[in-house]
Every structure is written in structure tokens, then in C-alpha cells.
């Protein structure tokens, strides 16, 4: 065969449909994408997910390391405490069966509180002389490390399952949800320094507002890690409630509210909390509304709503909008600057919605790390 007289113009000619080479150039990718399209997509997506998993792995390592260093440098500890920490990190919680939802809230509350009590007791075994503030700090750091470990394990499991089955559709839900997971994980990682240094976080705006209202008044511990101060304002009695600071805790405001309403006639409940802002909303903007403003798994909210409904007490709420990251990392200047304005709105709300001689419970909801009363 003579290869010296090939006419390249004719070979790559675009204007002739019968050109065999051009037909192959067009048909080959079509065949390739028809039969191997999913595998190619799986390969491209896998690379992105692998990068994210590597990041998650470094986050969990970092959080564990920070916890170990903190205990080593700040607490009197046992020699083999790292082994115990590694065991805690793998602890899981099995939520109660909800096929019959009757009584599910009590069951969930019992499970969660039992886990919290267990963690506290075991931290005490790591360092028997630990004080309450340090204990709450270590507990929070442990929760962060444990959550990051769990996130890593779940994402890695979903990825490896999809790879093992060579199944592209299986990896799609993970690809879609991954940016949100990464945002949460990144926020948790960045939350560590604030909790280590006992600095207020964005979620602490509620306790910060109520904490300032409680200053110079007699305080008592009304329920587990929850402080109460009784004051008066323009002829009304105010019951000010917040988690007991400056340790890292959210307290048990629902138990406290139940106790207050069982002993006193309450005419209104006002809750101040941080709320997740929607995309496009300004951070640190204040909004007012109705209903119990409290996050978490829902047991506290259920209890508060139950008490309010049984006693026919209206619930008003004031929220300060922020992102997930702002809520659990060091409080931003914008949020801190809104504390005074929020407090003024609380007083305004009291005047507008209650009469003289009435009693109001004001609850500062959120983690009170770095915020005393």
C-alpha cells in the first residue's frame, strides 16, 4: 500500500458525508458515551468526593488532636486517657423506635439525656478534679470531634458503596448533599478555638441579652445548668431564664419553665434565640414572631409548647438571624452589636403585649459559652 499519496484535504473533508474517517471520529465518542458515560461521570464525580473525604479526614484528625492537646495541657489526667477518648469518639446513639409515636418525645429525651450524663461521668473519670466549666468545655470538644468522626464515616461509606457497585446514580445524592455537609463540618472545625478559649459564639446572643438583664439581681439554679433571676419592669414581674454561664451549655429551659409555671401565674413567654438566616437575608438582622424559638432535637420545644398550651400562655419570640457557621463560631461584631437593640426590643415587646401586674418569663435560648449572668 502506498502511503505517500494520501490526500489529507479529502481525508478530513467536512463537506462529504461518506468520508469514513470523519464518520469514525463522530461515531466513536457516541458509542463511548452510550456505553461508558456513567463510568466517566463516576470517575469525574469520584475525584471531587475523594477531595472532600480527604478534607473531612483531616478535620476529624485535627479535632481529636485539639481535644487531646487541651486535656494534656490544662487538666490533671490519667496516663491512658487517649484510649478512652478514642472509645468515646465511636460512641453512637440509637434513637427510639417511632412506629408508635405515642410517648416518643419522652423516650428521645431520656436517650439523649442518658448519653449526656454518661459522657459527663466518663469525662470525670479522665480527670477527677475537673471543675464544671472545664467539664462542659471538654464535653463540647468531644461532641465536635465525635460528630466530625461520624460525618467522615458516613460520607466515606456512601462513597465506597457507590464505587464498589460501580453505580453512578448511587453517588448522585452524595454529590448533591456534599456542599452542605462540608459547610457544617467546616463550621464545626472552626468552632473549636471559640469553645477552647471560652469565647461567646453566635448562638449565645439570647443568653447574652438575658444575661445582661440578670446582672446585679439575685440568681438561683432552677433546673440543671439553668439560672433564674426574678426582677421587675414597669409594674410587671420578670422571670429571667438562661443556661448557667460561662460554661458551654444550653441548660434545660423547658424544665425551668415547667417549675416556674407550676408555682406562679404566667401571662406571657418571650424567647430570644439565634435563628438560621435564609440565603439573601442579612446576617445579624432581628426578627420578631410567635411560637417557641428554640432549636435542638425538638424535645425542649415540645415541652415548652406543652406547658404554654396547658396554661394558655402566649409565646413571643425575637430571633437574630445568622448562618450555620456564625452560630457555632466566635460571635461576629455584627451580631454582638445587636445585643443592645435586641434587649430594647424585648422591653418594647413586654410593654406592648402585657399589662401592669402581669408576670412574664424571658428565656435567653442558646449555648452560653463565655456568657455569664
Amino acid at each position, binding site marked *: 500500500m502506498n502511503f505517500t499519496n494520501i490526500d489529507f484535504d479529502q481525508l478530513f473533508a467536512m463537506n462529504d458525508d461518506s468520508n469514513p474517517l470523519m464518520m469514525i471520529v463522530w461515531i466513536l465518542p457516541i458509542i463511548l458515551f452510550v456505553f461508558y458515560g456513567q463510568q466517566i461521570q463516576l470517575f469525574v464525580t469520584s475525584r471531587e468526593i475523594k477531595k472532600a473525604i480527604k478534607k473531612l479526614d483531616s478535620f476529624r484528625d485535627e479535632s481529636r488532636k485539639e481535644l487531646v492537646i487541651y486535656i494534656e495541657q490544662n487538666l490533671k489526667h490519667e496516663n491512658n486517657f487517649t484510649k478512652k477518648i478514642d472509645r468515646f469518639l465511636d460512641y453512637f446513639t440509637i434513637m427510639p423506635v417511632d412506629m408508635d409515636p405515642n410517648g416518643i418525645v419522652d423516650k428521645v429525651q431520656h436517650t439523649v439525656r442518658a448519653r449526656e450524663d454518661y459522657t459527663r461521668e466518663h469525662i470525670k473519670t479522665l480527670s477527677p478534679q475537673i471543675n464544671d466549666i472545664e467539664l462542659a468545655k471538654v464535653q463540647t470538644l468531644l461532641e465536635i470531634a465525635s460528630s466530625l468522626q461520624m460525618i467522615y464515616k458516613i460520607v466515606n461509606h456512601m462513597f465506597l458503596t457507590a464505587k464498589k457497585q460501580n453505580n453512578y446514580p448511587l453517588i448522585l445524592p452524595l454529590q448533591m448533599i456534599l456542599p452542605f455537609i462540608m459547610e457544617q463540618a467546616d463550621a464545626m472545625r472552626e468552632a473549636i478555638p471559640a469553645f477552647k478559649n471560652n469565647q461567646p459564639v453566635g448562638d449565645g446572643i439570647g443568653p447574652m441579652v438575658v444575661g445582661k438583664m440578670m446582672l446585679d439581681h439575685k440568681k438561683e439554679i432552677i433546673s440543671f445548668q439553668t439560672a433564674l433571676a426574678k426582677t421587675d419592669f414597669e409594674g410587671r414581674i420578670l422571670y429571667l431564664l438562661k443556661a448557667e454561664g460561662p460554661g458551654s451549655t444550653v441548660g434545660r429551659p423547658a424544665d425551668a419553665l415547667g417549675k416556674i409555671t407550676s408555682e406562679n401565674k404566667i401571662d406571657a413567654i418571650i424567647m430570644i434565640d439565634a435563628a438560621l438566616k435564609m440565603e439573601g437575608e442579612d446576617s445579624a438582622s432581628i426578627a420578631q414572631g410567635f411560637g417557641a424559638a428554640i432549636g435542638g432535637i425538638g424535645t425542649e420545644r415540645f415541652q415548652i409548647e406543652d406547658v404554654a398550651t396547658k396554661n394558655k400562655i402566649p409565646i413571643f419570640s425575637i430571633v437574630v438571624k445568622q448562618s450555620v457557621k456564625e452560630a457555632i463560631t466566635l460571635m461576629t461584631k455584627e451580631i*454582638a452589636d445587636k445585643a443592645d437593640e435586641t434587649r430594647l426590643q424585648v422591653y418594647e415587646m413586654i410593654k406592648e403585649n402585657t399589662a401592669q401586674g402581669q408576670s412574664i418569663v424571658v428565656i435567653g435560648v442558646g449555648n452560653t459559652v*463565655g456568657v455569664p449572668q
Partner: protein
Amino acid sequence: MIFSKKKITIAYTVEKCPKCEMLRKRKFLQDDVLFSNSTKCSSCDGITVIEKIFGELMEQ
């Protein structure tokens, strides 16, 4: 991305003198706690109280 600067959060404490209402912003110190007494006021003889603790993002 290669040329983007790393952002770090720096913690600040704002002290307020209850006597002369003067505000002073300084870097956060380890034992700073909100609403606690801090330092002597630089413009009067009052003792400042920690009014705010917050973080600001800085580019490195």
C-alpha cells in the same frame, strides 16, 4: 484560588467604662469574660466592664 489570601479570625474585647461611657477595643486576652470588671479607665478613675467579645476576619 492559588492567589487568594488566607483569612483568620482575630478575637477582640470591647471594654466600657460605666462612669464616663468610654469604649476601648483591644485584643482578646485569655481570662476575659463578658460583663466582668477589666482594667482601669484611661480617661477617668472608673473600672471598665467587658461589654462585648467578638471576632473579626482578617486577610493574612
